[in-house]
């Protein structure tokens, strides 16, 4: 007891120093960790909240777009996805020709190369791209039939571009008295058309840079 009394001040000071050292080496790092974690939690909370709000915003926009489903369907039919078959397109052309009094004489893909391009597949990132499929037709009929046909093609929901049209009047026939007969309203029209399609193209992956050789 006497011993404690004698050194009580020194013991007190030692305990205070121990307390302060313990505080500095054990308590202070935990406190800092607590503060940092609090900030991280706050940041992550805000980040998640922002993402949640953004997702809600996008979903609201999708809901708004769903009100325009009819228009979106029209757009999809204007530029359909290429299915490696031109049957539907050619059937439409044939039907439109006959509906407007034209006789379809010839129909063919104008540029085989572009179709090959469509069929080309490469590995990499997939993107949707518009590709034009050019084709040409020869039709026979009257001038007004051609106008009706062009109007029908223009008004059709499927976007088909008229790239070129050419026709010429034949020289009027001459009767036995040498007089020119009234020219017939019958022509052969050559048309170059182009239909638009969406194709899922694959962007080629850029080759990796060659590694530098160690000197």
């Amino acid at each position, binding site marked *: 007891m006497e011993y404690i009394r004698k050194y009580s001040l020194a013991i007190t000071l030692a305990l205070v120093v121990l307390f302060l050292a313990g505080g500095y080496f054990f*308590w202070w790092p935990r406190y800092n960790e607590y503060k940092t*974690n609090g900030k991280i939690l706050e940041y*992550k909370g805000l*980040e*998640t909240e922002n*993402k949640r709000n953004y997702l809600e915003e996008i979903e609201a926009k999708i809901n708004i777009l769903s009100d325009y489903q009819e228009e979106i369907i029209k757009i*999809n039919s204007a530029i359909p996805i290429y299915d490696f078959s031109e049957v539907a397109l050619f059937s439409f052309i044939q039907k439109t020709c006959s509906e407007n009094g034209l006789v379809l004489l010839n129909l063919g893909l104008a540029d085989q190369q572009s179709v090959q391009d469509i069929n080309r597949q490469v590995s990499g990132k997939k993107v949707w791209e518009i590709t034009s499929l050019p084709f040409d037709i020869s039709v026979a009929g009257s001038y007004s039939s051609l106008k009706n046909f*062009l109007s029908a093609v223009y008004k059709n929901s499927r976007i088909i571009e008229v*790239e070129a049209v050419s026709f010429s009047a034949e020289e009027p026939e001459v009767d036995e008295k040498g007089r020119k007969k009234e020219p017939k309203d019958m022509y052969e029209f050559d048309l170059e058309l182009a239909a638009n399609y969406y194709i899922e193209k694959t962007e080629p992956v850029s080759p990796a840079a060659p590694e530098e050789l160690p000197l």
Partner: protein
Amino acid sequence: MPWWLIAPAAILLVAVLALAGSYIYFMVANKKMAGRVNELESESAALEKNIKIKEGEVFLIRQRIEDFNSLLKKHKQLVNTFAFLEAKTTKDIVYTSFDFNNIDKDSLVVVDGKSPNFLALAQQLDIFKKEEAISGLNLADISINEDGEVVFSLKVNFAPEFYASGK
């Protein structure tokens, strides 16, 4: 124990207890916070995935609308050309061939025709020159045929807005 030592000892004891208590509190709180951060991170990752899917949907629709708009702007009502030529051509002029070419994107119309005389052809050119729809006019290959008619070739460029619907 002397009285002057009891007070600091008590204070020290309280401080030690407070320090130990808060140390335990921080440990527990840190553990809880780390767990919550993990939860938020996985929720955030799930949201991110969902956002990417939904963005993809919106982007595809937006891309289609934009593509549709740009195609629609370029979409040409060729019947306008025929209607224009019919309305603006004098009865003396007879066209013998028509050629429209938009492959080079300059919408060039070439018409071959014949006119009974140069005066009628000049009148026709005058009418075309006054038209705002025509952005370029070029007369070429003029000759006289066996019937004494003036045969010509006329290259006409129409202004892009001319082909828009309703013109």
